[in-house]
């Protein structure tokens, strides 16, 4: 093995116990001391502060860190600025009154195009917004990840994105006559993402069709917290999947939370698809305050285990009724 060839065998003083040393003189025992970052969702929330700018990975109603979002909804955090390719993550935070400002390209439940809580918040003028082109959001995160003040693009030019975001500026190309939009870096205090698998150090894997922009969210943030379906020993990450699925590396991650079905009710392919039944329940309830109070009491006023138990019994009741 390539690894073995880089290791030399040493015998410490008088001991006949053999230790493996790598090229940096580090023993296996020391290697095992690489930082462990396992923590609970509650511990993640305890590291967040009201008023922070928080980026959320995933896309629409796909692979959202919903267990972390639910934990925030149970906390007393408030006045958050949320940056997201928005789905029910945004909806739940709006419904819980946690959001002061929203930075987004869209908010949608995918199979249900319009997000009811987002619509209500926009229509009541309850929140401040920065509505960007999807590609501008990408560029803002990429600029932040690269520690650049901005990145130039055509996206947004000519549209009312410039009118509704009067702080946006254009920049003249030093090489020709083009005047481009300068997308400001979207620096985040914290990022929350959900992965298929991760090791305890924060190396994380996506097994679905699209990594979305989760790595950029992590790199744009001072501290990134990652939930995952399953925590596995590092060698297992590449035992049955190509190394290219390891999109997030431990240097990007401050904390790892094991959260089976943590993306529910959004999709987390291939482990599970979107829970379309529950999403319809959510959207129907969200369109009416009285129905939402019932929904919240039934499903959300619990810890994470209680949430999943309530979903299971709700589904059983719905199946029995049909």
């Amino acid at each position, binding site marked *: 093995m390539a690894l073995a060839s880089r290791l030399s065998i040493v015998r410490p003083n008088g001991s006949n116990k053999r230790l493996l040393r790598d090229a940096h003189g580090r023993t296996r025992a020391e290697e095992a001391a690489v930082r462990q970052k396992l923590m609970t969702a509650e511990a993640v929330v305890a590291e967040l502060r009201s008023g922070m700018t928080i980026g959320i990975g995933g*896309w629409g109603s796909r692979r959202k860190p919903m267990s972390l979002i639910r934990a925030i909804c149970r906390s007393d955090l408030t006045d958050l600025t949320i940056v997201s390719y*928005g789905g029910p993550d945004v909806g739940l935070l709006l419904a819980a009154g946690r959001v002061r400002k929203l930075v*987004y*390209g*869209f*908010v*949608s439940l995918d199979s249900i*195009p*319009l997000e009811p809580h*987002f*619509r209500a918040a*926009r*229509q*009541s*003028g309850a929140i401040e917004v920065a*509505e*960007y*082109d*999807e*590609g*501008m959001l*990408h560029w803002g995160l990429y600029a932040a990840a690269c520690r650049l003040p901005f990145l130039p*693009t*055509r*996206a*947004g*030019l*000519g*549209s*009312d*994105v410039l*009118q*509704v975001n009067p702080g946006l500026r254009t920049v003249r190309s030093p090489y020709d*006559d*083009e*005047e*481009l939009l300068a997308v400001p870096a979207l620096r985040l205090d914290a990022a929350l993402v959900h992965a298929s698998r991760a090791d305890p150090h924060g190396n994380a894997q996506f097994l679905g*069709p*699209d*990594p*979305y*922009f989760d790595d950029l969210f992590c790199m744009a943030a001072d501290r990134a917290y990652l939930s995952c379906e399953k925590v596995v020993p590092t060698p297992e990450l590449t035992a049955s999947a190509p190394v290219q699925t390891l999109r997030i590396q431990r240097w990007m991650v401050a904390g790892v939370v094991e959260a089976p079905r943590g993306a529910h009710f959004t999709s987390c392919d291939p482990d599970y698809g979107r829970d379309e039944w529950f999403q319809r329940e959510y959207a129907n309830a969200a369109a009416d305050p009285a129905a939402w109070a019932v929904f919240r009491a039934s499903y959300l006023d619990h810890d994470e285990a209680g949430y999943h138990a309530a979903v299971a019994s709700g589904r059983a009741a719905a199946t029995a009724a049909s």
Partner: protein
Amino acid sequence: MTGRLVAGDSAAGGSVVPVATRAEVCAVACAEAWRGDGEILASPIGVIPTIGARLARATFEPDLLLTDGEAMLGQGTWAIGGQPEVIEGWLPYRAIFVLIYNGTRHVMMIPSQIDPHGNVNISAIGDFSRPRAALLGVRGAPGNTVNHPTSYWVPRHTARIFVARVDMVSGVGYDRAARAGVAASRYHELRRVVSNLGVFDFASPDRSMRLVSVHPGVAVDEVRAATGFDLIVPADVPQTREPSAEELALIRSVIDPRGNRSAEVPQ
């Protein structure tokens, strides 16, 4: 099922081509949007444009690239709700963005409002700061329209959608692109607008919307009445072409065997 004899076929034994539904005429009109595009990504939004894109590739535009609606490029012709049998590439969102900036795409989007110059709103109806109806958000419309060809599909043509002025310019029209300068206008191109009533383009001297054809059974006055601004209407307005027998067979048996098209455009 109603049917009609195709000229020349009756003598050969009465091969009957069923009359196309409005949804099928619309699907073919959408397919025509991608004619001549070659090896670019066709990105249809909605059922009828999706049928149209797959139909275009299955017939007159074989080099088009199509996604499975998620992150895979697929070969062959597959049904609405189905999956391609052969995957020929991986196109996650971040790769789509680069492809957009590269100009290798022609999208067909669904506007909530569209004006005579092709400015389109999908963001919010009313005052943006406190809209009467919040919609999706601008999504990729600003970037799409200034980077590569764009067409639009309107399943229900009304004067509430075809408006003199849109409330929030999400997709950029010809007047706004020109005013924003060369960076916005050099790759800007609106190809066509297909509605359930007719086909429209911007091939007029001031780049404002022109009626290209009306679908079979639609009168020009009906289009005028359902449009909230003055359309440019030529003296002679042709009829949108009807689907061929081959196209109808592909739509009915291969691309949309479950008939999802009639939910988007009822007959």
